[in-house]
């Protein structure tokens, strides 16, 4: 023993631990591939990090809350330290939430961090998905990761809903009642689903315990798996990057994981956590003590769900109360249609990448991001979707808008009914025009240079503005994007004069392709010939 150690230096403790782990886990091979992995930098790439970190914060604080929360609908008389509720009958769920808020030191803080982090988590996913959508980062090879992200967003909404329903306060109980009413509207099986979910008639004695296991076990378990898969794919695909000098579809330009991203991303976790803690210290969220315990015959005005359920609330509020009674059955369209539209609005997000790749017919990998202006139709569709979503948020808060802005609730509701259809069309047209305008400006900048603000008077009296030519990097960045040509269905007859059979799908694809890439739907980018022609000689006039 001693003879061999004399020859070799004794490895430091850290290295010996790493050796031990490598012999069992193979960590050196893993580190070789990843330790100095390059990540591109852009402020919008941190949106996903906000989601990841708030998810971690939610899990940490959620575990703490389970130590004190009793998911039980057994009724008790409250005898805690919150005086206004003394002696009032309530479920153990509500009473233990009061205890967390008033009798556990730091309990209120953790509850508020948990709730704020949930709101930020879903808002973060919303904005992160917009970033991915508008820059085309969902294209091959990332369609599956888009689906993972979509599932996280959808499951996040339901996890949030089951979570804020747990305290069994008057507001959340009303939300559960609304859900039960919506379930009843489902044709044929609605009453069965309701009876099975609630263990009998509403509200029963089971729903809190069932929501509890869904909220803390089932949904977060699935979400944790999806988050891990999402991150593995981000690592495996390597991050996308914006066009720029030295950045191609075949490389990834940025700074290494160790040390820069370790410090930046690790530090960012603490920044997010710190900001959420300060928000939770300063701003009350969901003051269940002010609402009182749930009773099915009581309600408060201004009842609102958490923001991410607002568009579903809006759909339900503005839908006309259609009911069809036929052959002894009732089709509750007034509630069921909003339920279906809710699903379709979300499904539209999930399927978009596949629709776009079908239209373009593009089977190549894309690692360079689109600037939103360079994909006018996609950008316009996205803005139209967001517009319809926002209009429905107004619908979901129609009572709040009415009372705060002193407007008629009926006119707000009618506004939403009309603008849910008209708004997206206007948004589509306006966005597309703006994108085209920006494309035109890019083209002008590339060909004629940047407006310098310097006015020159020519000998014959004419005033012109001096344009400064762009640098090679700027010219490259502004012309690096690809432009598709619209797909053609080809001639109606083949070379033998026989009529070609075109399927309806092919005709549709050609039509959509024209709408995306046809004349008037994108501005042809500057070509080298145009540039040379303009920059050689007659420079003064434009």
């Amino acid at each position: 023993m001693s003879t061999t150690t004399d020859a070799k230096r004794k490895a430091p403790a850290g290295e010996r631990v790493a050796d031990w782990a490598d012999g069992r886990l193979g960590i050196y091979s893993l580190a070789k591939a990843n330790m100095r992995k390059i990540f591109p930098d852009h402020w919008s790439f941190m949106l996903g990090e906000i989601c990841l970190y708030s998810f971690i914060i939610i899990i940490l604080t959620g575990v703490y809350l389970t130590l004190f929360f009793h998911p039980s609908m057994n009724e008790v008389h409250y005898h805690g330290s919150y005086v206004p509720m003394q002696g009032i009958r309530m479920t153990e769920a509500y009473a233990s939430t009061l205890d967390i808020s008033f009798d556990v030191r730091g309990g209120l803080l953790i509850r508020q961090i948990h709730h704020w982090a949930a709101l930020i988590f879903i808002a973060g996913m919303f904005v992160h998905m917009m970033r991915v959508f508008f820059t085309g980062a969902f294209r091959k090879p990332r369609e599956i990761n888009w689906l993972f992200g979509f599932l996280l967003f959808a499951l996040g909404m339901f996890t949030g809903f089951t979570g804020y329903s747990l305290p069994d306060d008057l507001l959340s109980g009303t939300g559960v009642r609304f859900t039960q009413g919506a379930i009843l509207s489902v044709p044929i099986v609605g009453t069965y689903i309701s009876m099975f979910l609630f263990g009998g008639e509403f509200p029963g004695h089971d729903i809190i315990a069932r929501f509890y296991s869904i909220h803390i076990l089932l949904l977060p378990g699935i979400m944790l798996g999806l988050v891990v898969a999402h991150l593995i794919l981000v690592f495996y695909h390597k991050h996308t990057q914006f066009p720029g000098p030295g950045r191609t579809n075949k490389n990834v330009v940025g700074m290494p994981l160790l040390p820069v991203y370790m410090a930046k991303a690790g530090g960012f976790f603490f920044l997010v956590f710190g900001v959420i803690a300060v928000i939770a210290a300063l701003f009350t969220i969901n003051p269940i003590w002010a609402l009182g315990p749930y009773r099915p015959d009581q309600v408060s005005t201004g009842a609102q769900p958490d923001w991410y359920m607002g568009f579903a609330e809006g759909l339900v509020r503005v839908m006309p109360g259609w009911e069809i009674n036929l052959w002894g059955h009732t089709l509750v369209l007034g509630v069921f249609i909003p339920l279906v539209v809710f699903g379709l609005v979300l499904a539209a997000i999930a399927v978009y990448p596949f629709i776009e790749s079908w239209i373009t017919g593009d089977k190549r990998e894309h690692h360079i991001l689109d600037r939103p202006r360079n994909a006018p139709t996609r950008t316009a569709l996205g803005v139209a979707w967001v517009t319809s979503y926002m209009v429905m948020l107004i619908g979901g808060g129609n009572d709040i808008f009415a009372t705060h802005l002193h407007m008629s609730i009926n006119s707000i509701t009618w506004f939403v009914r009309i603008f849910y259809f008209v708004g997206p069309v206007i948004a589509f047209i306006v966005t597309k025009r703006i994108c085209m305008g920006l494309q035109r400006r890019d083209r002008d900048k590339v060909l004629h240079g940047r407006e310098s603000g310097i006015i020159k008077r020519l000998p014959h009296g004419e005033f012109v503005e001096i344009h400064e030519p762009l640098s090679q990097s700027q010219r490259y960045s502004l012309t690096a994007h690809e432009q598709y040509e619209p797909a053609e269905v080809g001639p109606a007859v083949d070379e033998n004069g026989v009529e070609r059979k075109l399927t309806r799908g092919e005709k549709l694809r050609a039509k959509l392709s024209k709408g995306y890439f046809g004349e008037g739907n994108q501005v042809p980018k500057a070509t080298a010939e145009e540039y040379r022609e303009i920059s050689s000689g007659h420079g003064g006039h434009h």
Partner: protein
Amino acid sequence: MSSNEISDKNLPHEQGSAHGTAVAENPFADPGLPPHKPRIQDVDEQAAKRSERTVALLFTVSMLATIGFIASFVIFPVDEIVYVWPIGHVSATNLSLGLTLGVALFCIGAGAVHWARTLMSDEEFADDRHAIEAAPEVKAKVMTDFADGARESAIGRRPLIRNTMLGALAMVPLSGVVLLRELGPLPEKKLFHTSWKKGLQLINMNTNEPLRPEDVVVGSLTFAKPEGLEEDDEDFNNKIAKDALMIVRIQPQDIKDRRELEWSHEGIVAFSKICTHVGCPISLYEQQTHHVLCPCHQSTFDLSDGARVIFGPAGHPLPQLRIGVNGEGNLEALGDFAEPVGPAFWERG
């Protein structure tokens, strides 16, 4: 295949085709990564020292904040309320714990990010990407392996095994589905009935006393429950979710609906309080118009006209309970509701 029919000419040229051409020839060619510009900290050790001190200060503030957190936890009683301008009266524990925790966390983050931005190298590197798709020879090997495996399993040659296996696998989850049957009872006719029946007195929700006609004055809105239902009952919530009543008095000549008038007692009408939209309890009453509004989704009903829906998403009127007066002069029900209360459902008809 549609891709055969439609030419792929619409695909743009492979990006970066300009590569290799001299920059001078192509004004739009990629000039390559720009040279690294040193920061002040890279060239000036004084500046680097300043950054170092800033980072260390942030980490120190974090430590102090954690000590502050522990101190606040010990010092402030859980029920202490303090006034803090401009947020008002707040829990001292919540405010102090939250702010100290927030500062402790934020300063770690700010320190780490400042360190990364000013002192760690900010030189950009390019890493190569590799195609996700496997090379053709890899794919060929996998296909052969798969074919070998499939052949050795003989799954194609012995369809009996395959079919029975698929059948077994398809059927075994049914056990799980069957187990879910225990989640709750069948709907049967449960949603069609409430506790109301002939002879049950209407109990004022506020006083817990039987309602008398003279208690109900024009313009007031009274909530009632059936006699015998007490708040301490085990199934109070389930019962009240269907039994809750709204009582108003309307001048008989103002009642437009003939059946409503018949089912009233001298203009006193009793309607289900549970909204027919998705089941919120209705609570807002306009005494001049006799409109009631559900605060959840703003369905509006005209109580002087058979509780007809006049606005909002509800699909049918509120059910009315037929009432009369018993021997003691108290209001009583003359039977159950004629139709199910609350939200509509498939079997409602």
